[in-house]
């Protein structure tokens, strides 16, 4: 049953991406709408899957690569829906839906069995630390998607108002992601003091989280103080997405450390 709940959203997201692509290519509004409904359905089932897994495991399902990647895909989907609803930014779907599908596909490649929560993860900080990471990374990915959209349409004859909206949304997503990443790092530091006796140990995961934080801090400074916007900023948020993904996937697989169980 759990497997069905997991693979159904994967299939729905795939169909949503394909239909969304055709909808844009052939300017078929109805196909695009169907794609969006499939995506919404996929998100709802994925929510149910995470809830069910949490009930079966008796804990928040965020304790390994599979669970985090699934929650990450869910985070992107939920934030995409929120952005779409609140900011009426339909254009962001084009890049964000494939990202959701890709992240969930990565999750599908990981071992899915439910394991006991290891003692190191039994902490009050667990939910805050990892939950913030899910939404922080999702915000950065959506900012990157907005950046892609900006770069694509800035070549064509689009109204400057649209570009300003995309640019601003991208900044807002970075701001939210940055705040949440700060929560991730600081809550992680307090947790580390409880678990390992030191707030900071220069573990590869910590170091890469700091690198990501500094890179986005540079983005925010350039934007807010130097008043830079437009293409340069769009390129930055796009280029930073692989850094975020490396912090999530690459560090765990390539750079062993205290977070290797994650």
């Amino acid at each position, binding site marked *: 049953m759990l497997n069905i709940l997991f693979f159904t959203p994967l299939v729905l997201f795939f169909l949503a991406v394909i239909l969304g692509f055709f909808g844009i290519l052939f300017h078929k509004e109805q196909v695009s709408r169907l794609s969006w409904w499939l995506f919404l359905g996929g998100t709802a089932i994925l929510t149910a899957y995470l809830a069910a897994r949490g009930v079966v495991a008796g804990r928040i399902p965020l304790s390994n690569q599979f669970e985090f990647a699934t929650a990450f895909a869910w985070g992107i989907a939920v934030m995409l829906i929120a952005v779409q609803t609140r900011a009426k930014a339909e254009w962001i779907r084009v890049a964000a839906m494939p990202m959701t599908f890709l992240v969930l596909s990565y999750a599908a490649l990981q071992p899915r069995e439910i394991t006991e929560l290891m003692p190191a993860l039994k902490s009050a900080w667990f939910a805050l630390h990892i939950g913030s990471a899910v939404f922080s990374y999702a915000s950065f990915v959506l900012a990157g998607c907005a950046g892609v959209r900006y770069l694509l349409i800035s070549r064509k004859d689009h109204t400057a108002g649209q570009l300003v909206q995309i640019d601003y949304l991208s900044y807002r997503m970075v701001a939210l992601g940055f*705040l949440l990443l700060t929560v991730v790092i600081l809550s992680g530091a307090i947790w580390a003091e409880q678990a390992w*006796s030191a707030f*900071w140990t220069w573990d590869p995961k910590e170091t890469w989280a700091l690198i990501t934080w500094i890179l986005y801090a540079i983005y925010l400074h350039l934007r807010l103080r130097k008043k830079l916007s437009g293409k340069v900023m769009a390129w930055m948020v796009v280029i930073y997405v692989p850094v975020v993904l490396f912090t999530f996937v690459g560090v765990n697989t390539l750079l062993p450390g205290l977070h290797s169980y994650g």
Partner: protein
Amino acid sequence: MKQKILKFLRSMTFGMILLGLIVACSLAGSLIAQGKEVMWYVKTYPGWYGILLKLGLNNVFYSWYFLVLMVLLCLNLTLCSLVRIRRVYRAAKNAVPNAAKRTTDIPLSPEKLAEFCAYLEDRRFRKTEIGDAVVYSKNSLGWYGSFLTHLAILLTVLFGAATLYLPQVMDETCLPGETLVMADGTEIAVDSFHIEDAQGNLDYASKIHVTLPDGRSSGIQEIRVNHPFGFGGYKIYQQTYGTAGAVTVRDKATGAEDPFTLTENCFLSADGRNGVWFEALYPDYSRDESGNFTLISQTSGRYSNPVYQILIASDGVQTPVLAFPGETVTVGGLEYTFEAPVEYPGLRIKQTPVIVNILLCGAFCLMILGLWFCFFGSPALVTVRPDGCAIGGPKPQGTRMELAALLEDGIQEKEEEKC
């Protein structure tokens, strides 16, 4: 010249350069294994270990240049915060009077203007009337967001360094029933330790009690991963664990008994010639059909089928033997009874001023608050006059977007004209 240097030291450009260099060092520090033996680098990086070691890339985060970068970052943050606080205070104080002086740059019809004013009041903007202008303002504390954030980063670096360098940390293993005595006379006794709880789940919990030199006692406390215990300036962490062999030696002639814990290779003997060599304790084993043993050396929890690997030394002849808990070996007039293994904790004992930790956590809270003010509580100022409005504040774009969404036109067109 002095002014120029000072200006550069407090500039954002300098801050960005420092952050870039910190990123570069962090990259090196995460990609190159840190703190290994010199020979490890010689073997792993045969082509360029010389330059790697010369540049201190084997210990980047404790190198002199990384320390210099952090000091310069602190200097940059201090100087820019000092300049910023005056500027921010002035801007916050004069925000509304200055906004009242703004001329209208977004013309609006009276109906749209009324709709907009109602919207602002609905969004809890504060209304101030100055002359013919009405200034709607919100989030006045947001002026201090950037200052608070930078101050918090500075405090985090300073207190973080203090938590890194001030504490005295000791890693000790202690068998249940034994006591560790600290330099000041404080005694830390381990009463018991278990790897798994009653349900067989991994637990790693120790029961300890601490007695201070003045006689005050903590009483029995349980520590486990994520749940350290602090008492009398000491903080005790459940850090690692181990499993040791246990053997009771009985003198057949006198009946005297002595229990031993086997944590390392040792020779138990009365005459130094006949006795038992303890070689290793294995957590598990498997046995094939022909009776051959395969010893398993790795386990994550309790030793499920422990087995002792020993050598029985008798008159110069050594015989390798496997002994199981409960078994007795007799050699040289002594009886060696192998017991169930003993689980013991590895404790990390930290002596640290608690105030530094509290201050650091305070800096963390301040940083979150500052960032919230920066991004989500940013001051918004809208000046309304009979012919239209002007949008001000440090980040007017958000309010402009809201207004554009509200009115659907007007602002958007204005933006396009500006672009």
